[in-house]
């Protein structure tokens, strides 16, 4: 007898959203389908323990887990990824599992918009002509007469050419546009001597321009695009008004592909061995569509309103996004399918926006340095810079670019996702409730600042960096990063080893302690060591010293703020005067946004991608040695960090 498939209702609180799902669906899947955000890092394989939810009514089947405390179990906590729906349910999502939407703050560059015809990057002085890749052009067409019998399509092209200067021969349109054209034009008015008012949406495709939409009337103010940073760990999307260049809203999610591996090499292996490239692609498309749905709902827009999307990401992530075979990326001689991806139809990939909207990928340099870096380099204006610059993007891979307008070399090191809040017990993204700054005073009192000024839920990248530096300065960890038992009552012993209490339960939003564990500290030290050793190896290859570097641009999803001094204290960056260091935030996203808004910016990105020289660290025997010596706080060679060693010795006279 065939199995009867029951379906049940799952109701989510506090969102008050309900969805009907098939029996045996996991609660996590149901939440995704209902567009209810549930935090999950491992992507549903019961290893991260972040997807805790509470069963208020009903019953679920769930296997035993060690990720829930006995107290949580008693309070009907379950892991959403493990619990299967076997009846109607009422589920409430506790604060620690919820990302409260809209609380990622926009920076000033993002709200600044267009000034004097230019759009702006994260640094003053870096600006590009405002001329979006996809533009809406309001046109007034003379209606045809017996004296002027130019057909509709040619009439349209003539008007566009007159208004924009785009040569007629480089304008084209698809069949569907042609079919719609007569009726749209007539809808716009057909009375004698009254111009036909229409808005044409024109997309740049290399040297060609394609008319992708015709709308009656003037719709130039309803002009939206999406800039997406497709990160290995985090995906961030910005909703941008193409006409004003202002960012309306921003949303982020962890990349669901994480269930197939923390770094993209593991994911490539999975895709190849299991023939599962399609699954990886659908996963990232689902994430992007999820972000879109949130952004659109929150801002009362429809999918049809989005006419362009730019994506920046490392080469592997772009391969996954487009379902291109990534196998050769990890095999000698490490070849990508393409560095310069032509504009594609977003709809063909399953991205839920206007059906003819193009998707532009920022170009890569190599299999291991992608559009996140070329875009970032453009966003900080590296191609115009006279001074010798070091540009570092800290993500799951840490990419380092050294150079200026004359030359650029780059490399990539596996840094791990810890500064994005993953792989750290109470790590989180830079959203409301995240501790973004932290300091331990000389009297051992602990001060912190929270994004959104609420009660803390976890610690984001900048807070984690501060924590390591503060622990080192206060002497609560030694230079190996080992917690010192008995140093303060905050250092305490648990079954899993030592941990440091950051915020006690009564003061947190989650009702449980926020701690940093010994394992967290080691993960963060490994991440910083990967970055430092990449910088050191690249400098050595170019016969340069840290003191030769005149500017350092530090990018990454740390948060809105970064205390650059601490990057030196922990030895992530070499000892360089701090006034030469600038934190530029998520430069990959800035790159995607600027490209979306400026054809000039996109041209620059392409120039940068052609110009950058890739330097392979993995085949460099010095890299591993550099890495081990950087696996120390601040570093194994005191001579490279004289000021930090001095400061530590001053605070702890027993330190030599």
């Amino acid at each position, binding site marked *: 007898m065939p199995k009867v498939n029951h379906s049940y209702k799952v109701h989510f609180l506090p969102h008050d959203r309900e969805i009907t799902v098939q029996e045996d669906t996991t609660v996590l899947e149901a939440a995704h389908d209902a567009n209810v955000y549930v935090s999950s890092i491992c992507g549903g394989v019961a290893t991260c323990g972040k997807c805790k939810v509470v069963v208020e009514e009903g019953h679920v089947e769930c296997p035993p887990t060690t990720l829930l405390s006995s107290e949580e179990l008693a309070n009907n906590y379950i892991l959403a990824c493990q619990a299967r729906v076997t009846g109607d349910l009422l589920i409430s999502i506790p604060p620690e599992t919820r990302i409260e939407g809209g609380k990622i703050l926009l920076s000033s560059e993002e709200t600044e918009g267009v000034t004097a015809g230019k759009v702006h990057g994260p640094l003053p002085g870096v600006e590009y002509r405002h001329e979006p890749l996809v533009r809406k052009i309001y046109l007034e067409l003379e209606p045809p007469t017996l004296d002027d019998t130019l057909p509709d399509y040619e009439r349209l092209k003539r008007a566009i050419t007159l208004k924009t200067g785009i040569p007629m021969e480089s304008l084209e349109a698809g069949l569907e546009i042609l079919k719609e054209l007569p009726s749209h034009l007539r809808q716009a008015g057909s009375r004698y001597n009254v111009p036909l008012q229409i808005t044409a949406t024109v997309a740049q495709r290399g040297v060609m321009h394609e008319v992708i939409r015709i709308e009656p009337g003037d719709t130039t103010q309803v002009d939206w695009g999406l800039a997406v940073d497709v990160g290995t760990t985090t995906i961030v999307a910005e909703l941008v008004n193409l006409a004003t260049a202002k960012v309306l809203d921003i949303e982020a999610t962890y990349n669901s592909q994480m269930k197939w591996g923390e770094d993209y090499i593991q994911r490539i292996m999975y895709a190849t061995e299991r023939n599962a490239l399609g699954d990886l692609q659908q996963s990232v498309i689902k994430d992007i569509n999820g972000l879109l749905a949130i952004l659109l709902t929150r801002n009362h827009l429809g999918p049809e309103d989005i006419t362009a999307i730019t994506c920046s990401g490392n080469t592997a992530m772009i391969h996954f996004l487009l379902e291109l075979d990534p196998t050769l990326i990890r095999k000698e001689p490490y070849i990508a399918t393409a560095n310069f991806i032509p504009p594609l139809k977003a709809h063909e990939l399953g991205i839920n926006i206007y059906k003819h909207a193009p998707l532009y990928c920022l170009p890569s340099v190599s299999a291991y340095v992608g559009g996140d870096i070329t875009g970032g380099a453009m966003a900080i204006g590296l191609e115009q810079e006279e001074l010798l610059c070091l540009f570092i993007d800290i993500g799951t891979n840490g990419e380092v670019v050294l150079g200026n307008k004359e030359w650029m070399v780059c490399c990539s090191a596996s840094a791990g996702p810890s500064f994005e809040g993953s792989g750290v017990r109470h790590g989180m993204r830079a959203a409301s409730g995240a501790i973004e700054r932290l300091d331990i005073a000389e009297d051992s009192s602990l001060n912190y600042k929270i994004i959104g000024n609420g009660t803390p839920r976890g610690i984001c990248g900048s807070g984690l960096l501060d924590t390591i530096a503060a622990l080192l300065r206060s002497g609560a960890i*030694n230079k190996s990063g080992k917690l010192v038992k008995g140093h303060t009552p905050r250092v305490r012993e648990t079954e899993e080893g030592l941990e440091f209490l950051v915020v006690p339960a009564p003061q947190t939003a989650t009702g449980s302690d926020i701690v940093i564990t010994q394992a967290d500290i080691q993960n963060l030290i490994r991440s910083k060591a990967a970055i430092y050793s990449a910088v050191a190896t690249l400098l050595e290859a170019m016969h340069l010293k840290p003191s030769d570097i005149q500017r350092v641009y530090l990018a990454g999803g740390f948060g809105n703020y970064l205390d650059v001094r601490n990057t030196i204290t922990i030895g992530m960056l070499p000892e360089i005067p701090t006034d030469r260091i600038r934190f530029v935030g998520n430069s990959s996203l800035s790159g995607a946004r600027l490209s979306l808004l400026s054809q000039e910016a996109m041209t620059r990105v392409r120039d940068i991608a052609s110009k950058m020289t890739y330097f392979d660290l993995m085949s460099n025997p010095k890299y591993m040695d550099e890495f*081990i010596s950087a696996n*120390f706080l601040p570093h194994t060679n005191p001579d490279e960090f004289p000021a930090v060693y001095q400061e530590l010795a001053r605070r702890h006279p027993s330190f*030599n």
Partner: protein
Amino acid sequence: MQIPNVTEKWSGTVTEVTIGATKEEGGTRQKVVKVGGASCIPFMDFEGSPGHKPVIAMDVLDVPPEDWPPALMEPFKDVISDPALWAKKCVDKYGADLICIKLDGIHPDKGNRGAEEAVKTVRSVLQAVGVPLIIWGCDDTQKDNEVLPKISQATKGERCLLASATQDNYKNIVANCMADGHNLVTQAPVDVNIQKQVNILVTDIGFPLDRIVMFQTTGALGYGMEYAYSIQERERLAALSGDKFLALPVLCNVGYESWRSKEAKSKDEESPGWGLAAERGPLWETITAVTLIQSGVDIIRMYHPKAVAAVKKHIDALYTDGR
């Protein structure tokens, strides 16, 4: 034609470490042993001072060894169950510069002897010989942390060399060595960076650099000797280039490692084509030792008297000013 002068000019010198204390210095040793002091790479003494000659520490076990082959048991069979007599024989008969008491018997799996017994053993050896002592734990962290402090206190003032401090376990032994005036072995398995990190960590809590001897773990001939060699060589080059955290004497454990190899320990009837076991084992130990000396070694822990004699002869030949 003038031949250009290609001698290197080194900026660093290996720190001198003194092991043992005489009566005047607050101990009971008849002589002290100084190691280190080199300011050139080994045997390139036209570039600097070669420093003190490498010294040999013969191992004495607190419990009779269970797995030693006959060729190794032979010279010690009359003293094997009395560490004091064993040590005395090593010094008087075989010319050991130092005695290394290896506390195998305190290991939980090898007798689990208590601190009191271990202290008794060490005391008896101290009384039996006049040379300085190295005291080596059993490499079980917990047990070492329990026993070594007691031994440190019991030998206070003798300026022994205690082993060992590692990256994950150093506070306890450092504190005791500091309080009781001993020297310390810092250990990091074939990694020069971690070696340096351990040295920084122990000095961070106040231990003086001039009381540290480094141990990189040793591989015998055919069993990774080249790893130990290249790491020790790198250490010495770093030392001479001015890295004070690596400018410290180096110890290697040749006896134990050589006699673990099947070439050294297999019996005549097992390997008829390999030559006599009585020669083979000592040779294996000798070759391992003389090779590693080239990389820059200051203290060599050894087992077999024949090997000791050969290595001593080799050292004397190399260091005699007869060039």
